[in-house]
């Protein structure tokens, strides 16, 4: 009975109602961890049942009865005491051996064919770089099924910790160091997973989430090819054979612009997203821009507005030379992401507009991070209303920028 208990437990907790359960066999790492867990829980359950039954039995059997005999005084029993010293030691050997084997398996370096991903923790978002593919993105990872993936983790500021519970154990992203974590998502059908920061990193530690999409090799290649491109905006009109006039706006080498693939790469289909990876964080009161204003947003106007806005100081859009910032997340393919604000909101016009309007109300931020931009908004740090002189934008201007950014597929 004791043996069945932990197995039963992990089977129940792997069910769909627990979408972030660690009891999965999606990766080699988690299979090892689960196996260790099962071993330990088996012994743990035996010890637990033995100790608690012994305790309860002792309490019942030796409760004081009126007129009961005076207890016999026993001061110790060397044989018994040796037994309960040696037996736990033997049990520990059964736990220690697979433990050490697993430590050396996952800490002696990733397989040579592993996909390399650099993970850089920021207060409070994740920067992901795929050096071989030339991709820089934020808060959303794509991993091909069946290929080992090696995360090289570091931090720009304080210590963070990278964790996708369904795929593998966590590893800290430590300033001035590079840590490694690798696993192979080898027995999983294409799916989306939640990730989180697990080392306390300040005000928005709870809001430093991310997504990992495990997709087929072909879809991964398509996604990677799409992400590796520069942003093309405004897109060349389909009926313009040359397309040169449109492309000149943003492309540093206008002559080559038409040759670029115009179709965006693969994006994990929104309709296949499991419910738990779709954020439900509500928008704070008073930040919502009416739908009709958002619907009137014009990407071309937004492009021009963006290029004159505060945004460009911190954000980068490859292919838009006016936007070289490196402090905030790379926005080159913002439209290809499902989430916003480090996994906190859905990436749609409503949320993006509210975010631009007053990011510091959407999520607790630091005094050096994205300021409020909406005209008349009270910035939580300065406690002052945002004015036009400070770069404030009205709802329509924000709606235009939203239209532009969401067009960056």
């Amino acid at each position, binding site marked *: 009975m004791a043996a069945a208990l932990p197995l039963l437990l992990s089977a129940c907790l792997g069910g769909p109602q627990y979408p972030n359960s660690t009891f999965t066999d999606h990766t080699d790492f988690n299979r090892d961890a689960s196996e260790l867990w099962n071993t330990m829980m088996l012994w743990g359950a035996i010890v637990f049942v033995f100790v608690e039954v012994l305790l309860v039995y002792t309490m019942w059997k030796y409760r004081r*009865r009126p007129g009961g005999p005076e207890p016999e005084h026993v001061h110790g029993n060397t044989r018994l005491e040796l037994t309960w010293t040696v037996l736990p030691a033997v049990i520990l050997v059964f736990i220690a051996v697979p433990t050490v084997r697993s430590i050396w398996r996952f800490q002696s370096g990733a397989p040579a064919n592993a996909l390399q991903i650099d993970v850089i923790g920021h207060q409070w978002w994740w920067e992901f770089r795929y050096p071989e593919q030339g991709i820089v993105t934020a808060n959303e990872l794509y991993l091909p099924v069946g290929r080992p993936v090696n995360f090289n983790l570091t931090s720009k500021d304080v210590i963070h910790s990278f964790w996708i519970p369904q795929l593998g154990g966590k590893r800290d992203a430590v300033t001035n160091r590079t840590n490694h974590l690798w696993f192979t998502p080898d027995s999983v059908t294409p799916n989306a997973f939640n990730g989180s920061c697990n080392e*306390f990193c300040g005000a928005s530690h709870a809001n430093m989430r991310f997504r990992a999409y495990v997709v087929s090799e072909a879809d991964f290649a398509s996604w990677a090819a799409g992400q590796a491109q520069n942003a093309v905006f405004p897109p060349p009109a389909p009926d313009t054979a040359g397309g040169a006039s449109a492309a000149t706006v943003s492309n540093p080498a206008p002559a080559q612009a038409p040759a670029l693939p115009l179709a965006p790469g693969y994006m994990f289909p929104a309709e296949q997203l499991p419910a738990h990876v779709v954020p439900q964080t509500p928008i704070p009161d008073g930040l919502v821009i009416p739908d009709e204003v958002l619907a009137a947003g014009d990407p071309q106007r937004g492009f021009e507005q963006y290029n004159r806005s505060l945004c460009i100081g911190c954000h980068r859009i490859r292919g838009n030379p006016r936007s070289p910032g490196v402090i905030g997340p790379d926005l080159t393919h913002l439209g290809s992401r499902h989430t916003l604000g480090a996994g906190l909101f859905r990436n749609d016009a409503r949320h993006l507009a509210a975010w631009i309007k007053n990011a510091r109300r959407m999520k607790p931020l630091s005094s050096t991070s994205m300021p409020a931009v909406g005209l008349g908004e009270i910035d939580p740090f300065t406690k002052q209303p945002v004015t036009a002189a400070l770069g404030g934008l009205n709802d329509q201007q924000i709606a235009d920028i939203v239209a532009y950014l969401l067009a960056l597929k």
Partner: protein
Amino acid sequence: MATVAASPTYTTAGARRTGIMDWLTTVDHKKIGTLYLHTALFFFVVGGVEAIIMRWQLMRPNSTAVSAEVFNQLFTMHGTTMVFLVIMPLSAAFFNFLIPLQIGARDVAFPRLNAFSYWVYLFGGLFITIPILFNAAPDGGWFAYTPLTGKAYSPGQNMNFWVLGIQILGISSLAAAFNFATTIINMRAPGMNLMRMPMFTWMSFVVQWLIILAFPVITIALFFMQFDRFFGTNFYVSAAGADPLLWQHLFWIFGHPEVYILILPAFGLVSEVLPTYSRKPLFGYPVVAYSGILIGFLGFGVWAHHMFSVGMGPIADTVFGVTTMLIAIPTGVKIFNWIFTMWGGAIRFTTAMKFAIALIAMFTIGGISGISHASPPSDLQQTDTYYIVAHFHYVLYGGAIMGIFAGIYHYFPKWYGRKMDERLGSIHFWLNFIAFNLTFFPMHYAGMLGMPRRIYTYDAGQGWETFNFLSSWGAFLMAPAFLIFIWNFFRSKTRGEVAGDNPWDAATLEWSIPSPPPEYNFAQIPMVTSRYPLWDLTHPERMKDIPHSMDGWDEAKLRTGEHVTATGVHEPDVAPMHIESERKSAKELGIPMPNPTIKPLWVAAGILVLFSSLPVMYAGKTLAAFAMMAVGAVMFVGFLYAWLTTPMEDAH
């Protein structure tokens, strides 16, 4: 203390004070223990309220009951409060009250240093707690990991209060630890050899060495942080190339022994409670003592198991994983020894006994979950999740707090001369036991199902709602349980059933004197011949197979001497094991008692002023800060000088 040439005209010379001054000037270890107990219970309420607000916020997803800023202060202060202001001082209350009584001494080795320890604790506790009323409490976690807690990422005053507050509290802990270690080594009654000491004194003795060895490490680590924050050094400044793991290693070299500093006194208390209510001696006394020493020793070699996710490499992970597993052995030994203490006994289920048994049952759960993160690959799925929160609450609440409750119910009659109400105690126990499990058991699930620690909010639909809801209701239920305890505690002081000197039929020296004990404790220091000296008198039939000897008498008698009564009769200070039920004053007996003095309080206040100057300086008020430093230094040096040049007892 007592010297051979005691004055025949010994008086207390008007030094006896009343009312509040009595408490401010006391150097009596029992009164200081009482101060510790009440102050710690006050902070227990503070830490509990912090926890309940957190559980209110986490009861539902995407809740906005408190802001992230406030939540981060709450969890930082909950941890800091419970560790440094509640469990350690509750243990200190028992060290103070019990150690001299258990070893047959009239006070601790340094009574005035003892008062000083308490006042430093009180001032440090207030220093670190009061800022939360102004939304400026420490917010970097009780572990205060750098670089987050450096000036660059925590520019506010918040972490200043933490780094200075813990430094102040460290002074208190170290002073007390040296005091108790000295007391236990030097002041045992004749025949009270080490292997005859009651188990609580044994565990306390181990704890004093853990404090003496572990606190200097955190002191140095805090000085580095203090210099970084106030004087611009770069010990932990990552932008200047510092390794952020330096702090973590220093913190946990202190922090892991700290866990045993918290738990071993509770182990000691239940080792007193279980034999008493089973009417049997402790099973395997030497093994219980040795395993305590071994736990303390191994406790210094496992700190990096708090850091398996920081990337130490396979060798360190292997070593620390295996040493951590080894600790399970001496801990398991204790569990079995306690159960076999009960085995064959005649168990009385008093409230104290229920709490002691609950410690065995609950600590076992904490121990088993502890093994599951002694294995690094498994720990990587558990560390920094709610599973860990569940684990250490089973150890610290299910272990330390349950043990301390057992101790309070058990020793209340000795402390106040009256029993606590058993019916209310039973309600307290059951409500507390259910609420505790309801709060912390579901956290195991939340953690293994992916919920990180220290988050002020979480999204809906993550599979965590049920568990958080249950945990919150458990936490809310703990409040009435604790209120019942507090009601019972204060009511029983004046209205409880009068207990008598030895209500539980216990075996150790503290029960051989009146309840509450007179100021001098023992009119004549008992000469001990066995491990259960009181049973030698009350139950000689139980003692036939227990070794008796007069080992250690001669040496101890040399240190004890004689005293002179008011009528001028010379009496030896020692007497064969006896029961004292007569209550006289120290003056009548001619026992010189240390004079009450307020100087230790002022020295402690000087330290508070000195440390308080640094946040003032941080705020840019340099002149005011220098003025405070000068005042603090003058107070500290001046009152210390006055203290050290005043004889402890009246001139003979």
